[in-house]
């Protein structure tokens, strides 16, 4: 039985002896623990305010370590890097918890990386290298490599990932990045071997499965571009038939049938891996060829209406290759025509049919391809109109407008808007997500200020209407005295030993005077104006109105930035569609022309 019994303690009066004590800002301080709760609940702004109320002078260096950790973590989570960094730097000097410090610095560098401050991220990571705890070495390598790759310093990234000889402790993602870095650094054989290892890993979750597909897709297209169709084919076949990379794999598989088959490619060793590859596969072309029963079914041709053409134009060998290439493409054109891989397949099929001499079907497919591409262009234009209206971003932002998650906010699902499909890749990129977070934050802050405006008005009215007697002035003074902290409290005075000392009379005119120790006292001027709650509330309302205007302007600029990013991405995609359309129309015109001239009959 794990359920509680009600515990009733009537009359259990707590006396002063029963109370526990805490220092403001210490780990036991309920306010610090409330901040911990708020941070875990994703309410970072509230956590910061809770902590800052403990330290109205905004001097965190004078507060206990527990307070500083909590405040720095809250600032970073809320996307305030500069504030967080200042406190972490201070903690570097005082904290003995090197692991926590290392984790915090990695988080800081991750923030800098995702926000595009790559030089700063690199500096943060190099700076922490000397004190890096062993437990964080792989995370540090992974992040630094990503930063260097973002800066296109692929050689440096590969060095970072290989010079510690810890390949067996690195994640699959890190090894994938190593492969990409090596290839882009001109060390293709080693890079391809690294990617191939990922392409053969036994996945333990969906993410690893997607990573494996991605590695195989990258390898496949690499070999295809290098005119190694025979090597590319089994790599494309390793990619799942249904998944985020399946369309491009099917497209590549078709092209691999038509590309020159090339030589067998031998694998190369990567410097940081032991030479104990137990795999019987030593070349890429013999790796993991999977039989896909669906691809050999005859009726797939019937499904596409391709069973009646005459295969007489190409050589026997080429004819077989062309027929094989059609198999994945026919499957591909049954998928969403907004995908560029599907659009390309719509062009590749008539191209192949033309090569096979099936001119009538080629004509029909070119005409269908033009229809598909024109529809894609129409939807693209609708998406652009929708972006200018800001519908998608607005829908995303409105869903969790109150959330104070800041930098930790995650886009979990996408709205049903015309542009969502086209922008799915952009939406997954850091540069878009981070700008979206900032836009979301400005909107949330605007709402927060609206709320505070009303609360301040309510407080002002409550104060005016209150008949509560004022507190005991003597008690207030005693409390203020108890809580007064001298301005020098917490400051560290660095003492050093002088190598030589001189007596005071050795300098100046030789006269020695007692130092003036007693400060001269005089009456302070009376305050220019009373600063009670009402006065403070009115001043706060003025600041608030000004800040609301600034936030509105920032939100507009951030929204425009998101719009421009989206439109630039759509323009790029539209140019692709336009290129395909030109190709399709030109090929169609050429077929008609040849038909007019009677060339098709002769062929």
């Amino acid at each position, binding site marked *: 039985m794990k359920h509680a019994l009600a515990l009733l*303690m009537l009359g259990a*009066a707590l006396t002063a002896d029963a109370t526990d004590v805490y220092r403001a800002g210490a780990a036991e301080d309920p306010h610090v623990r409330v901040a911990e709760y708020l941070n875990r609940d994703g309410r970072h702004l509230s956590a910061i305010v809770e902590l800052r109320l403990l330290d109205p002078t905004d001097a965190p260096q004078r507060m206990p370590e527990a307070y500083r950790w909590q405040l720095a973590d809250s600032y970073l989570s809320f996307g305030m890097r500069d504030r967080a960094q200042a406190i972490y730097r201070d903690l570097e000097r005082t904290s003995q918890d090197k692991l926590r410090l290392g984790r915090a610095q990695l988080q800081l560098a991750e923030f800098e990386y995702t926000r595009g401050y790559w030089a700063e991220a690199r500096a943060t990571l190099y700076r922490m290298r000397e004190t890096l705890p062993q437990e964080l070495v792989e995370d540090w390598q992974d992040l630094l490599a990503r930063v260097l790759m973002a800066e296109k310093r692929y050689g440096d990234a590969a060095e970072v990932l290989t010079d510690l000889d810890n390949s067996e402790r690195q994640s699959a993602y890190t090894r994938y990045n190593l492969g990409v870095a090596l290839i882009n650094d001109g060390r293709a054989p080693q890079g391809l071997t690294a990617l191939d290892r990922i392409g053969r890993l036994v996945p333990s979750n969906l993410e690893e499965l997607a990573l494996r597909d991605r590695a195989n897709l990258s390898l496949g297209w690499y070999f295809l571009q290098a005119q190694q169709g025979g090597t590319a084919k089994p790599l494309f076949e390793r990619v799942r038939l249904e998944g985020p990379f399946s369309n491009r794999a099917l497209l590549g598989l078709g092209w691999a049938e038509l590309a020159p088959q090339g030589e067998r490619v031998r694998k190369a060793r990567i410097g940081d891996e032991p030479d104990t590859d137990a795999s019987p596969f030593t070349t890429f072309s013999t790796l993991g060829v999977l039989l896909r029963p669906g691809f050999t079914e005859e009726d797939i041709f019937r499904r596409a209406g391709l069973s009646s053409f005459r295969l007489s134009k190409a050589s026997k060998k080429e004819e077989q290759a062309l027929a094989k290439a059609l198999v994945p493409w026919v499957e591909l054109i049954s998928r969403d025509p907004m995908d560029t891989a599907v659009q390309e397949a719509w062009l590749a099929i008539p191209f192949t049919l033309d090569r096979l001499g099936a001119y009538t079907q080629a004509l029909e497919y070119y005409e269908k391809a033009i229809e598909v591409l024109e529809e894609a262009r129409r939807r693209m234009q609708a998406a652009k109109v929708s972006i200018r209206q800001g519908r998608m971003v607005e829908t995303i932002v409105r869903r969790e407008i109150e959330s104070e998650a800041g930098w930790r906010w995650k886009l979990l699902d996408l709205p049903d808007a015309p542009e969502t499909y086209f922008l799915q890749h952009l939406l997954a990129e850091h540069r878009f997500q981070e700008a979206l977070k900032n836009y979301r934050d400005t909107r949330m802050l605007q709402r*927060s200020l609206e709320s505070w405006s009303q609360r301040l008005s309510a407080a002002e009215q409550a104060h005016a209407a209150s008949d509560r007697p004022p507190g005991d002035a003597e008690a207030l003074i005693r409390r203020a005295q108890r809580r007064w902290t001298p301005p020098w409290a917490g400051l560290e005075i660095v003492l050093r030993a002088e190598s030589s000392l001189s007596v005071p009379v050795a300098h100046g005119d030789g006269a020695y005077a007692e130092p003036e120790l007693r400060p001269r006292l005089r009456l302070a001027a009376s305050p220019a104006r009373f600063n009670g709650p009402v006065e403070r509330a009115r001043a706060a309302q003025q600041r608030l109105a000004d800040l609301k205007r600034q936030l509105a302007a920032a939100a507009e600029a951030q929204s425009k930035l998101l719009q421009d990013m989206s439109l630039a991405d759509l323009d790029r995609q539209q140019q692709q569609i336009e290129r395909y359309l030109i190709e399709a129309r030109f090929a169609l015109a050429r077929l008609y022309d040849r038909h007019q001239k009677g060339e098709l009959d002769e062929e």
Partner: protein
Amino acid sequence: MRSIRGRRALRPLLVVLFPLHAAAADPAEDIAERAARLDQLVQALKDEVIELTVEAQSIENTVLVPEHLRVSVYLRVDVAGLLLEEVSVAIDDRAAEVHRFDDRDARAMLSEQAARRILRATVGEGAHRIRLQYRARFADDTEEDPPVTGSYEAIFDKHADDTDLEFTISRKSRFGDELRTSMKQWRRLP
């Protein structure tokens, strides 16, 4: 001749799709600069908003819950997997303040260091009665399992400073399933 034409047709398509291909130029440089500038601006505005919110919260506290009358009640859960659903707390004969926890709120309580403020009220100096009731479930409970409930009642002494009370729900013993609620009063050192 025909095969050459076929290969030429293939090449541009490959270049577009190849995922490892490094981009030649970065047309988004302007956008990246704007993004960085705006990020700095938003950070600065957040700073301003925090300053203002701290001041506004301080004003509200001064007016509605002045320190010499203030009592703050906190709740901590020290039982792994216990997800709170509802908590109510009342002082003397006043109406109870009720808090409902969604899954995220309840999970946020499951940290050794976390505490949630469940009440902030004003009371005069002297002895006061406080009552706490809660309803919760264990994370591995089925729909059929009855909810976990508990309550606690005690007298506390309000002094001239602001008063912090903390309830803790914990296990009665290390290996048992029975829960207990305790309360302690905190005093801030000068």
